[in-house]
């Protein structure tokens, strides 16, 4: 009898649904219409970027597919072979729509890669500073303060002036320009978390320092870092576009959105607006979508807002 009861209890325990903490958060996330728009936009953009070769009418990198006769056609016109150019073509006869799809790839890869690496470096630095404390902390935070007193574009220019142009260098420049934001946030959060009892408990158990950092402090500091990382992806994409526009970034053969916009710059004065206009709209949608999602994430992940 007792055994059966215990079994039943055990079955009940194992069959109890796992605590669903994710669902309400996700539901709350989508309860704001702006966030819903942002999420839809983001999914759309990522899908287009990932499946660009399948979706795009033309491969803009394949010179064989380009025909100089088709250059500078307005939106809605057709190629000599009868392929429609929904958004027109640029000076080399590239389909703008295809260019945007492939450009999104470059922009997203640069944005995500740089934000991710900057997040890893910055978070490590911030957590270390908060956990170790003392002189290490004060030196590191002085460095962060110093760096944050310079505008990001100036830091990026400095890196590019030293390293020269190119996509890889732009990624490096963005990392150098952005890591300090993560470091400050991570340290700020970790300073609060460090004083909590679970960290003390972990220390009392003589768990090695790196383990306390990685398994105890880090997961509890992650929420604000994720929010910042989301916003920083948008900032990185914008910065990359700006640098590419200035001629310091992506190569002409593999254009990002900024490069596409820069290509249209020379045609702007003759009224050929579509070469710059549509890539700009794509850039705008990308940045706004990411920002809307990030904004909502901040509200949802902030425990003070949880009700």
């Amino acid at each position, binding site marked *: 009898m007792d055994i059966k009861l215990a079994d039943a209890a055990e079955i009940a325990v194992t069959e109890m649904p796992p605590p669903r903490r994710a669902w309400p958060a996700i539901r709350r996330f989508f309860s704001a219409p702006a966030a819903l728009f942002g999420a839809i936009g983001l999914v759309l953009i990522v899908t287009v970027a990932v499946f660009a070769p399948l979706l795009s009418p033309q491969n803009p990198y394949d010179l064989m597919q380009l025909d100089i006769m088709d250059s500078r056609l307005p939106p809605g016109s057709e190629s000599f072979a009868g392929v429609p150019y929904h958004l027109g073509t640029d000076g080399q006869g590239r389909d703008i729509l295809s260019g945007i799809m492939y450009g999104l790839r470059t922009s997203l890869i640069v944005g995500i890669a740089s934000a991710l690496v900057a997040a890893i470096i910055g978070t490590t630095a911030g957590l270390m500073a908060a956990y170790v404390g003392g002189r290490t902390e*004060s030196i590191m*935070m002085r460095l962060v303060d110093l760096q944050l007193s310079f505008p990001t574009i100036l830091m990026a*220019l400095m890196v590019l002036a030293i390293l020269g142009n190119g996509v890889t260098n732009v990624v490096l420049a963005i990392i150098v320009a952005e890591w300090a934001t993560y470091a400050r946030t991570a340290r700020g959060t970790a300073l609060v978390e460090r004083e909590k009892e679970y960290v003390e408990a972990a220390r009392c158990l003589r768990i090695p320092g790196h383990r306390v950092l990685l398994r105890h402090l880090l997961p509890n500091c992650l929420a604000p870092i994720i929010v910042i990382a989301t916003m920083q992806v*948008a900032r990185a994409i914008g910065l990359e576009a*700006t640098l590419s526009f200035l001629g310091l970034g992506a190569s002409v053969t593999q254009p990002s959105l900024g490069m596409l*916009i820069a290509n249209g710059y020379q045609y702007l004065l003759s009224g050929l607006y579509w070469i710059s206009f549509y890539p700009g709209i794509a850039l*705008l949608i990308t940045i706004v979508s990411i920002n809307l999602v990030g904004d909502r994430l901040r509200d949802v992940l902030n425990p003070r807002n949880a009700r």
Partner: protein
Amino acid sequence: MMTTLIRRAIQAGFVVFAMTLIVFVGVNVIGNPVDILINPDLNQAERLRVVQNLGLDQPLWRQYLSFLHGLSQGNFGDSFVYSKPALDVIVERLPATLELALCAMVIAIVVGLPLGLYAGLYPERLSSRLIMTGSILGFSLPTFWVGLMFILLFAVQLGWLPSNGRGETAEFLGARWSFLTGDGLAHLVLPALNLALFKTSLILRLTRAGVQEVVMQDFVKFARAKGLREGRIVLVHILKNLMIPVVTIIGLEFGSLIAFSVVTESIFGWPGMGKLIIDSINLLDRPVIVAYLMMMVVLFVSLNFIIDICYTLLDPRVRLDGKG
């Protein structure tokens, strides 16, 4: 007080010194100056002679010392493109950039402050919501793309305003300024608006947040209870208390306006420092690059120093020597 100031000044000096090291090492070690400086068509003997002339055969620390020596005299070497001292080339462009940045700041304040005040006082109105949505756009829109759209709309489609260069300039205080002539002013409008866009949104949001905080305070309620006119409450009681954070931000952001003018100047062909640095990076005009970077470092370090001092003077609660 005095100790704090001296300590801060020493720190600032140390930062500038560290930056000279970083810029020097960056430009001379990571990038190879021999490749950049020397015409590839020269033969081996000529090459060697130029290397010796430029002092590039010396050990690195000696090169660094001579670099520092040149720095202390404001000598960054001659620009390869303009064949003039690099610092002169930059200082020549300074008025154009200053003019642009100042105009942008004025626009940002004149537009951002009243709109922020309005949106903060009447947050429920539809117009306030529209203003706030607009400010989000101001943050999200890439500056350079907005600049292009300005050109497209106002210069190409409507033909109202010119989109390239400074236009006519007039001499004043030993420099040439655009805002003194009608033509120059017309040239100034689009770039200044473009540069002001981001800062307008920033000031707007800051003002709104400040207003909502101040309105809740007892002295505002008391002023209302006393039956003061609304205009007086807004202008005296609310606006005055807003000014401290807003003025701080304006001071802080002025430096970043100068840095961000790089983008605007490139779009509108505005012949300032920002366009110069982009051209120099593309042409590998090393002395100008180094001079520009050092100038920016000094500018930002001094700006921060001044702001720190103002903080201590304005707000005794800020203890600069406290633990950071």
